């Protein structure tokens, strides 16, 4: 059966090891995201390009549906017809590869932390994180239990915190509007 054993040489890709607890809960390193046009275009013309890109990014934010707990039900409620998010160009997308925003909706446990870090790293830049609900912000009602991570910003950088347990769909909507304002303000620094 020599024919069948000829598997191609396995190129060992980088795979993070989540062996120990410290490694699992280590915050994500955020390398500097460089865009080539910063070097090519002179300073004046960059403003125009930045504005165009910021406006296009803010009006088509694709969130990665990442429902952890009860906040996920309110997040789905926000996507549905009564508090429609599609009118802002916000289309729920299951995979991190094509999404811009990660909505962490629910309690972040220490068993789930490495998965959240990996998903965050697998999202293409520029990416944003909305920490939805008290649980994602600082552990919420479950803060005292030692298997619960006290806030998702211990492992990934968070852009907008939405208060509430669970936050009403309107407050998640407000969170998205705040994120859009933030994108417009930070347009000079993102590329």
């Amino acid at each position, binding site marked *: 059966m020599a024919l069948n054993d000829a598997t191609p040489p396995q190129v060992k890709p980088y795979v993070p090891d989540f062996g120990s*607890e410290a490694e699992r809960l280590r915050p994500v390193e955020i390398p500097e995201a460089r865009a080539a046009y910063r070097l090519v275009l002179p300073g004046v013309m960059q403003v125009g390009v930045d504005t165009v890109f910021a406006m296009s990014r803010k009006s088509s934010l694709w969130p990665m549906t990442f429902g952890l707990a009860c906040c996920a039900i309110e997040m789905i409620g926000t996507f549905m017809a009564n508090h429609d998010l599609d009118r802002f160009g916000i289309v729920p997308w299951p995979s991190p590869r094509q999404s811009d925003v990660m909505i962490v909706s629910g309690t972040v446990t220490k*068993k789930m932390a490495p998965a959240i870090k990996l998903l965050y790293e697998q999202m293409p830049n520029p990416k944003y994180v909305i920490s939805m609900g008290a649980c994602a912000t600082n552990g919420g009602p479950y803060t*005292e*239990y*030692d*298997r*619960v991570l*006290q806030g998702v*910003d211990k492992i990934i950088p968070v852009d907008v915190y939405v208060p509430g347990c669970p936050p009403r769909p309107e407050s998640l909507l407000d969170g998205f509007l705040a994120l859009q304002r933030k994108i417009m303000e930070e347009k000079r620094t993102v590329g």
Partner: protein
Amino acid sequence: MSNAATTEEFPGVAALIHKHLPKAQFVASRTSNDVDIRTDPAHLIELVEGLKSRPELAFDYLRNVVGLDMEAEGLEVKYHFYSFAHNLHVQVSVPTPPGNPHVPTLTHLYAGADWHEREAAEMFGLVFDGHPNPKNLLLEEDLRIHPLLKAHPLQKVEILQGIEEPTPGFKF
């Protein structure tokens, strides 16, 4: 467990059980809403097999497996059984001596006991002898802590995250 099998007072279901399983040693008592029979790990399997196999009892549904940390008296396991045929409910408590929390497993009798026992084992440090797959269920695989024990502390709440020292005179 003094096998004072002569205690007459068998409330409710315990009388039926005693009638059909005369050899089983247990002490019957009554909780707020159902009957509790106490036995020890050695006689558990024999009692449960009797409960399940006797047609008059037919306790074919293992409802619940509750682990308990009674601090001084060691760990304890409580099983709740229900019989669909006769609409009967009974609670079986199995106290274990403080030293060795060993209880025989029921997975060969009830398939549903598998996950319940794994959860009680990892939460209290109980050991279910003969369990097919005694890995952690709710905690990570390599974690050897038992969170639900009374001795296990809660986590300190970090009130001021990121702000090193609060403004003077500001107390939580």
